């Protein structure tokens, strides 16, 4: 078989089980693709020895007929996951040299399911960013370009390396994490599929924390079926994460009927933003027509507090980040600044954090510190948490009306150029998450599915939002949308 790296998870799994290929061949094909893709800067720590060892074990298991769900399938791992003995830096200088003594629950689950790890993937520092431009490793680059224009585009963020790697066929699939849209926005920018499950589905244990009440891991894959397979492997109840859900994990792949007849799909009027490009509006209308043709009932709905989701997020997420990132003090792990004569422990903290954190992380830690400080806690933090209650209530109300899922655009634009937002106000960059962030605040599952291209040939995606814990139903609706849209475009190889 040729071009094995171009396979998806389901195809490769079936080929492995049919004996048409081996995990070692698949892994070699991916390692070769990675070696030739330095220009994308997607893989930042390479683990070929681990990959080949895991592949050999997988091949042995396949031969014995003892192959778990992801046996022998080569994937990339976002740098946010702690992987034992392998650099895990969260894209930050402050964790340079850090080698975890433990394995995150999600990566362990994937290894238990037989997955092969090719290496660690680029990302925005501490997952704070929407363009992968805040990474200590430098920008990850989108394999897609605007027609014949060779300007480098962002793969989105924060899971930018994951998105670029999957879109460029450097791996079969990758892990991502999503705090305000960090799986769905980069998936949308690169024409791949990405799902953020219900808060609590995937254990956060061993995932470097950004905003603990919002962070969730999820898969980034080449299609919806692959997302179902990999999500199931990632999910589990985990006593080491107190917010992990003790619920059975369904067989998501088996639930992929793509039958949406009689399903009620809500179209929220508040997602029709002022100044939204016509192409996004047209994409959305096309998606609505596709779901209607497939037999779904389209219902206009209202989520009245949508407008306040981003401002609430930019209180809650920095507040939690300022607390979570207090641990980077130059004492227990990672970088410590070189001190001057007479410097005490406070200077050590301050210099270490100034050197170790990039500008966006510093900004968010300080905003978080401010909104939690005496005198402002009620005005900002408590108010934002009350608004969060209202945002969640909006969703509860429409689900109580019988809505099964909600269809929205995934992003307000296609991928933009790297550096294009350099002079913009930080708030402009935050607007990238306008359609995705509500889902994190309400703890719901959301999936981005590529459904079209803009006039420059760049991929565009729609988002489906599901009821809590009903990822199986959500994936099945996404499967219907994927089949109807028939998006098959791939970036032309230039790297």
């Amino acid at each position, binding site marked *: 078989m040729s071009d094995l790296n171009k396979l998806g998870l389901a195809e490769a799994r079936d080929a492995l089980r049919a004996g048409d290929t081996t995990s070692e061949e698949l892994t070699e094909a991916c390692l070769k693709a990675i070696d030739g893709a330095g220009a994308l800067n997607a893989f930042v720590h390479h683990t070929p020895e681990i990959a080949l060892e895991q592949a050999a074990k997988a091949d042995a298991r396949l031969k014995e007929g003892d192959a778990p769900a992801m046996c022998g399938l080569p994937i990339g791992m976002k740098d946010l996951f702690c992987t034992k003995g392998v650099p895990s830096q969260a894209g930050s200088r402050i964790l340079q*040299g850090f*080698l975890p*003594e433990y394995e995150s629950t999600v990566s362990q689950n994937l290894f238990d399911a037989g997955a092969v790890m090719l290496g660690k993937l680029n990302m925005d520092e501490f997952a704070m960013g929407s363009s992968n431009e805040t990474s200590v490793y430098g920008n990850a680059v989108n394999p897609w370009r605007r027609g014949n224009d060779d300007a480098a585009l962002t793969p989105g963020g924060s899971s930018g390396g994951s998105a670029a790697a999957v879109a460029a066929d450097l791996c079969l699939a990758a892990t991502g994490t999503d705090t305000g849209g960090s799986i769905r926005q980069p998936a949308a920018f690169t024409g791949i599929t990405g799902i953020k499950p219900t*808060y*609590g589905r995937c254990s956060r244990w061993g995932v470097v924390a950004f905003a603990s*009440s919002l962070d969730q891991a999820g898969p980034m894959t080449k299609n919806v079926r692959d997302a179902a397979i990999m999500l199931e492997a990632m999910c589990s109840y985990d*006593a080491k994460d*107190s*917010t992990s859900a003790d619920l059975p994990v369904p067989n998501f792949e088996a639930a992929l009927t793509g039958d949406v007849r009689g399903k009620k799909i809500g179209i929220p009027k508040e997602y029709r933003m002022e100044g939204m490009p016509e192409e996004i509006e047209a994409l959305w209308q096309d998606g609505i027509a596709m779901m209607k043709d497939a037999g779904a009932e389209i219902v206009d709905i209202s989520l009245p*507090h949508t*407008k*306040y989701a*981003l*401002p609430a997020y*930019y*209180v809650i997420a920095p507040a939690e980040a*300022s607390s979570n990132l207090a641990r980077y*003090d*130059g*004492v*227990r*792990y990672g*970088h*410590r600044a070189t001190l001057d004569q007479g*410097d*005490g*422990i*406070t*200077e*050590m903290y*301050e*210099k270490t*954090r*100034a050197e170790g*954190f990039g500008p966006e992380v*510093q*900004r968010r*830690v*300080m*905003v*978080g510190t*401010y*909104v939690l*400080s005496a005198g402002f806690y009620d005005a*900002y933090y408590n*108010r*934002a*948490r*009350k*608004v*969060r*209650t*209202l945002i*969640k209530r909006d969703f509860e109300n429409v689900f109580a009306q019988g809505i099964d899922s909600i269809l929205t655009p995934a992003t307000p634009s296609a991928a933009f150029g790297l550096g294009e937002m350099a002079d913009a106000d*930080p*708030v402009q960059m*935050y607007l990238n998450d306008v359609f995705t962030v509500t889902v994190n605040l*309400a*703890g719901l599952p959301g999936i981005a599915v590529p459904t079209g291209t803009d006039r420059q040939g760049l991929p565009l995606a729609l988002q489906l939002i599901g009821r*809590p814990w009903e990822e199986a139903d959500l994936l099945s609706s996404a499967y219907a949308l994927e089949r109807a849209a028939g998006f098959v475009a791939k970036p032309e190889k230039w790297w």
Partner: protein
Amino acid sequence: MSIDENTAARVAKLARIKVEPDALPALAQEFNGILGFIEQLSEVDVEGVEPMTSVTPQRLKRRVDEVTDGDQQEKILKNAPDAREGFFAVPKVVE
């Protein structure tokens, strides 16, 4: 609510991040941009609304209060920038 350079310096201090004095005006300006955006929240009527503490309505699990972990001194110190004699080492904190 407008943040001046003194407030920016105080926040940097609280966050234990060293900011050079000449970087403070730009920092204060960025804070003001972000806080201006956040200010929209004051439009929302939150009378009688409970602040969210848990996004999924689940009761936290309980377990027996007993030691489940330990004896990992070597692993814990392995990534320390400066570890000596089984301890984390830091600059002198007492005179």
